[in-house]
């Protein structure tokens, strides 16, 4: 037994693991046809690294080292297996051939290997976001296997007990095995069918960082960064898919406002109140570029993420709030509403209409949504209504709506904000 890794080396190994784990697990899943087993093998390789690297030093190509180690473990495992199935024997044989061939330094082989890594990662993406899994399981598995997050990190990010996340991941892997979900990138119509689930998982992670659904923090920027990274990876892996770029654009543009979105005490600062000099120009530039690409690739109309990115771009382009092109935003919401038929989108559209054409026009639309079952218990409906009522001088009604909204809000800073606004109305401010 070797000495445990020192602090520095431990951090280096953590970093190597974060970089290598997704491709390692993806490549192994393709070879052994089971994502649970693939992760176990990768973890075994990590344990071997932790034992031997303190003495031998970190190898020049740690990824190749870990992969070779994991393949050896797989061969041992299959050869030792009590029931020697033909299939396992075949896999073991192929792994041995692979190892014997070794890494090639020939550029063509290198390019082929790089392409294989891309395909493997995409296969893993679609597996983690497979519809056979519940949405929470998709999120946990994606963050764990593709985002390189530990179970602890996922638990902290979602304010969920560690054991729950652990269970979720274990069960998800079992479900995938039991359902014999193939390791592949869907093509054609199936791709169009399955892609929204993948984008949905990434955007859900982003949203949880952008506006936490519960807890003391209003935003969790690290979660936004994880989602952004996944979105950027996907855009590189699927460069021809308009909505992939649309999602990347949407997240880049929204993330560009993250640091302007929190006041000094952590309280929310709303879009029109934000100090726009704090917006991140690098991210805005990336977002606008991704949006261009999404629009250029869109055939037969813009998809929902591209439309939302186009709306975000209207804000990003306005140096001061007064320059916001609200009429264009309304038009984009028209498109989004037609596509989704969602009352939540309608509610946003109503806000845009109020900005473009006055609060009365907006209120009319909001009132039409009062009975939408999807919005029952949703704090934003009374909150939007209160704002419009206040602007029309109907302060008592506005006060009542704000109090109602505060009672429905999920996170603390947001709730406090609503109560403060109510107090402001009551105090004649």
């Amino acid at each position, binding site marked *: 037994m070797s000495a445990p890794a020192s602090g520095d080396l431990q951090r280096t190994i953590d970093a190597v693991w974060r970089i290598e784990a997704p491709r390692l697990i993806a490549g192994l899943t393709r070879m052994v046809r089971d994502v649970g087993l693939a992760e176990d093998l990768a973890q075994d390789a990590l344990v071997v690294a932790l034992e031997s690297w303190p003495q031998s030093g970190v190898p020049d190509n740690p990824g190749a080292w870990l992969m070779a180690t994991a393949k050896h473990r797989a061969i041992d495992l299959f050869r030792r297996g009590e029931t020697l199935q033909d299939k396992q024997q075949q896999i073991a044989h192929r792994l041995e051939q692979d190892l014997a061939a070794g890494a090639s330094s020939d*550029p063509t082989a290198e390019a082929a290997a790089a392409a294989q890594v891309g395909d493997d990662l995409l296969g893993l993406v679609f597996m983690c976001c497979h519809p056979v899994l519940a949405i929470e399981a998709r999120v946990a598995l994606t963050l764990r296997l593709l985002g390189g997050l530990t179970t602890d990190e996922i638990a902290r990010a979602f304010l969920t007990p560690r054991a729950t996340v652990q269970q979720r991941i274990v069960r998800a892997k079992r479900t995938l095995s039991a359902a014999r979900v193939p390791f592949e990138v869907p093509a054609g119509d199936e791709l169009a069918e399955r892609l929204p689930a993948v984008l949905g998982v990434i955007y859900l992670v982003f949203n949880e960082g952008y506006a936490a659904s519960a807890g003391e923090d209003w935003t969790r920027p690290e979660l936004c960064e994880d989602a952004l990274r996944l979105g950027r990876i996907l855009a590189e892996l699927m460069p021809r898919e308009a909505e992939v770029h649309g999602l990347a654009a949407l997240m880049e543009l929204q993330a560009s406002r993250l640091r302007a979105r929190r006041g000094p005490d952590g309280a929310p600062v709303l879009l029109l109140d934000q100090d726009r000099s704090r917006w991140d120009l690098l991210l805005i530039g990336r977002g606008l570029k991704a949006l261009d690409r999404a629009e250029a690739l869109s055939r037969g109309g813009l998809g929902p993420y591209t439309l939302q990115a186009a709306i975000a771009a209207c804000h990003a382009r306005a140096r001061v709030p007064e320059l916001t092109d609200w009429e264009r935003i309304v038009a984009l*919401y028209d498109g989004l509403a037609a596509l989704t038929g969602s009352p939540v989108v309608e509610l946003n559209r109503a*806000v845009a209409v109020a900005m473009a054409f006055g609060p009365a026009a907006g209120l009319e639309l909001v009132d039409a949504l009062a009975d939408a079952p999807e919005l029952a218990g949703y704090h934003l409906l009374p909150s939007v209504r209160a704002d419009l009522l206040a602007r029309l001088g109907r302060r008592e009604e506005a006060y009542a709506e704000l109090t109602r909204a505060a009672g429905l809000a999920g996170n603390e800073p947001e709730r406090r904000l609503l109560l403060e606004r109510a107090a402001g109305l009551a105090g004649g401010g």
Partner: protein
Amino acid sequence: MRFMVMVKATPDSEAGTLPSEEMLAAMGRYNEELAKAGVMVAGEGLHSSARGARVQFSGASRTVVDGPFAETKELVAGYWMFQCKSLEECIEWVKRCPNPMPTDSEIEIRQVFEAEDFGDEFTPELREQEERIRAQIGDEAR
């Protein structure tokens, strides 16, 4: 966190020597790998300091000094902006970079300051609804 990864200048880069085709290809592969890992958010190569200038400050006076500048090893020949989880991760990525110069060379990593200091511009008065929308986000509402 974000890191600025700076390729330091060498006598070659300061002389304006262009990289070989082989180097360009290797760097292209590296850049692709960075992009595919979602790590690189920006990057540019810089002309030699002969095409640059310095503005020196002293009280109210400003003095412009034209390039080139002598202290080659202190100059920057190009940079990337990386988004990483830690300095260690950034170092691991930089170690994978092909030597950017035909001679010995150096890459310097610096963490970008994240403006957590928000000052007092925060105004509690709200003019717009801020919303959290799970299924479909609206910018208007938040």
